[in-house]
């Protein structure tokens, strides 16, 4: 369980987060929505232990977060900058396993297994810059999953992809979440996406010092499906509610 208690974060004297309290139960897929610049990325970086300090307390399964927690993986929006161009796709995906001290053959086998899962078996020996944007983001997702993280943080991961690719990756993420059951914090500024993906949607107010203005459980019947789910009356109602909160009306 991830708990944030009266968390604050600032850059110099620019206060970005203030008194933010939030609990994410194990296995939940939480979507965080909010206008650009409200501090969504800052929130993720704080939880990931990538920023030097924070106010308040953050605990992961009861232990305070100091530095980067174990069993954490992060996927950023900018796949082109977070994948390493000098490594092949397979080497990129296998990289996190080096910390586990696994022998080379096992790292390779693990990477291939996870690449097959995201549908990229044929690209293992190519380089990231030889792939399309959607495929690159699949590689980044595979790399995040390879260590079987218990907490997965995603910062607008599909924000720069075209609509079709984006829907495919949304469904891939839902499938991964169903089978792996990791806790996922998914940041987006896309209201539709947040309702389609989330077990729960949290809306942040515009900064500085943004707060939670809406905390909404998403209960949608059946397995989610791009066409049917988006047409449901429940979906439309939830989307409007989130939309109103984002626009502050």
């Amino acid at each position, binding site marked *: 369980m991830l708990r944030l208690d009266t968390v604050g974060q600032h850059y110099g004297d620019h206060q970005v987060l203030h008194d933010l309290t939030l609990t994410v139960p194990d296995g939940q897929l939480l979507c965080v929505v909010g206008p650009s610049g409200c501090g969504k990325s800052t929130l993720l*970086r704080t939880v*990931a232990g*990538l920023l030097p300090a924070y106010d308040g307390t953050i605990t992961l399964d009861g232990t305070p977060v100091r530095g*980067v927690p*174990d069993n*954490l*993986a*992060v996927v*950023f929006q*900018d796949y082109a*900058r*977070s994948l*390493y*161009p*000098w490594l092949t796709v397979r080497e990129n995906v296998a*990289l*996190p396993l080096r*910390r586990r001290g696994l022998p080379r053959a096992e790292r390779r086998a693990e990477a291939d297994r996870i690449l097959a899962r995201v549908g990229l078996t044929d690209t293992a020996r190519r*380089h990231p*810059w030889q792939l399309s944007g959607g495929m690159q983001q699949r590689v980044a997702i595979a790399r995040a999953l390879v*260590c079987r993280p218990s907490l997965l*943080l995603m910062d607008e991961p599909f924000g720069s992809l075209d609509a079709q690719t984006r829907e495919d990756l949304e469904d891939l993420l839902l499938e991964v979440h169903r089978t792996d059951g990791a806790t996922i914090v998914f940041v987006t500024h896309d209201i539709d996406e947040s309702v389609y993906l989330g077990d729960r949607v949290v809306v942040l107010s515009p900064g500085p010092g943004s707060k939670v203005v809406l905390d909404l459980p998403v209960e949608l019947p059946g397995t989610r499906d791009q066409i049917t789910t988006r047409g449901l009356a429940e979906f439309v109602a939830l989307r409007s509610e989130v939309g109103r909160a984002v626009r502050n009306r």
Partner: protein
Amino acid sequence: MKDRQERLLLGAFGALLAFGACEAVSRAGVVRRSYLPPASEVLARAVELAGDAVFLDGIAVTLRAWALGLALACAIAVPVGLVLGSVPVVDAAVRAIVEFLRPLPSVALIPLVSLLLGSGTETKVALVTYASIWPILFNTVYGLGETDPLAKDTLRAFGFGRLSVLLRVELPGTAPFIAAGIRISAAVALILAVATEILSGFGEGLGIFIAQAGLATDGTRDVLAGVVWAGVLGLVINGVLVWGERRLFPWTPGRRGVG
């Protein structure tokens, strides 16, 4: 592609024009033939030298000093650059020394170093090393500064520490910059190797050949043929290094490097 062809064509045209001008000036008797022999004669002599065992030995001696000096410069500049680029405190402390040493023209140090080390290989290697250090050092520091923070954060988020980030992200990311620095240094190193030989005046090497030809009566043709050899060596070295950079770092668009 078309751009490159056009540039090659223009380059060839320029070379031809210069060649023709030298040829004409000399043949027309505008200057004495012993001062400026026709370009065709110089070229013929340069080709002839390719079959001269003594001359080729000299080239080998010059290239050995060049390679040794350049290798030493890499061995010094890359680690120092990595430390300067990643430890701000050290950087601040060393910067003053670096800024003092850098503008000193290496060629001006030739007499001093010759006095200290004699006029043998040591002098040549020392000067080549000294001159080659700077481009490699500055490119290493600059390249480190250019490392994408997101690339570093990605590795940190997987639980890797400071040293891993340096070795797995910053070093490979900086490699294209280091390579560009080495390419710039390779040219500087060749200048220093030949210049040191010319100024010290005896022993073996391309510079010695040029210096001794300069003392002989009617030696201008040999001097110029030696210069042609120096130019061709420089071109070949640069070409090989550019090709190597393209092979090693196919993801970097265009060439990089700060002089």
